[in-house]
């Protein structure tokens, strides 16, 4: 094997064993979780919300660890929960759902509005091979009755 081929194989192996793919899946929830500026079907105006939010939520799914032993963790607020240890399995966990569900508090007349949906794929530079990937949602819960049209558009 030539030196070039060895390097190609080495880099190929290194990159192939990074953290496995993640999926942020909230489809099991029945309360609307909106990521768009328009909140209601049929509206042509972007939504504004009257008054304060009922509650806030922050959750996501995260994979951290060395290439050879990724540890899947999920963060709900500041707490970190280890979920499973696997590297090649495709993770499909609904852990952010717990944070959103808790913020909704069992009400069926509310809407969860996502302010920030962040995706990151990171490699820690002091420890090469240590990966940290996450998809996170941060947002607020409002009563459906708090939804208004933005003033400048409603004119």
């Amino acid at each position, binding site marked *: 094997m030539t030196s070039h081929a060895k390097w190609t194989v080495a880099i190929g192996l290194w*990159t192939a064993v990074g953290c496995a793919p993640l999926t*942020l899946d909230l489809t099991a*929830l029945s309360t609307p979780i909106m990521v768009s500026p328009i909140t209601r079907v049929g509206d042509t105006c972007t939504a504004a919300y009257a008054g304060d939010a009922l509650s806030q939520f922050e959750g996501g799914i995260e994979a951290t660890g060395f290439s050879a032993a990724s540890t899947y963790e999920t963060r709900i607020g500041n707490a970190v929960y280890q979920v499973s240890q696997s590297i090649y399995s495709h993770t499909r966990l609904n852990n952010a759902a717990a944070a959103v569900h808790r913020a909704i508090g069992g009400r*069926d007349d509310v809407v969860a509005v996502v302010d920030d949906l962040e*995706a990151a794929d990171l490699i820690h*530079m002091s420890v090469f091979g240590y990966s940290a990937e996450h998809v996170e949602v941060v947002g607020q819960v409002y009563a459906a009755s708090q939804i208004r049209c933005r003033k400048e558009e409603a004119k």
Partner: protein
Amino acid sequence: MRTLTTLTTLTTLTATLLLAICLCNCAGARHRVRFDSMKVPVSMSQSVLDQHGEIIPPERQEVLGHFETEVQGYGIMWTLAPLGKIDFSDQLNARVAELGGEAVVRLRCHLERNVPTNSFLWINMLPIWPGIVRVRVDADIVRVVPQIEGRQRQKTQAPAVI
């Protein structure tokens, strides 16, 4: 002589500081996933609201089609400076218009496996080396079924009682 000592000290301090910043940081990319100019509501759950603020459950939705696409986001300066935006609005709006949809539901956000540029040893320390995050979203595009039609649909879908 004194000036030289001061300069050496300053250079050492700067180098140490830069090295510390470099080693404490992460390479790669960090991006906000946006749907800023969507013309219809987009929900990550199975339901959306109607104009009266009532929840439209899956029984009152007719799935017209599926949407799935992948985008790469770039960043430099160890994730501190994202390049461009990840906004799926244009592609999703086009698909909704094509199908005549009224809302998007069951949107899921996937982070794909690490991309090669993130794993280049040591080169990652260069602030101009680009990091990449690969994001894929998929969702169902639906239209709202009128209330009566929705009830009938629910009845036909309900399991038989034994």
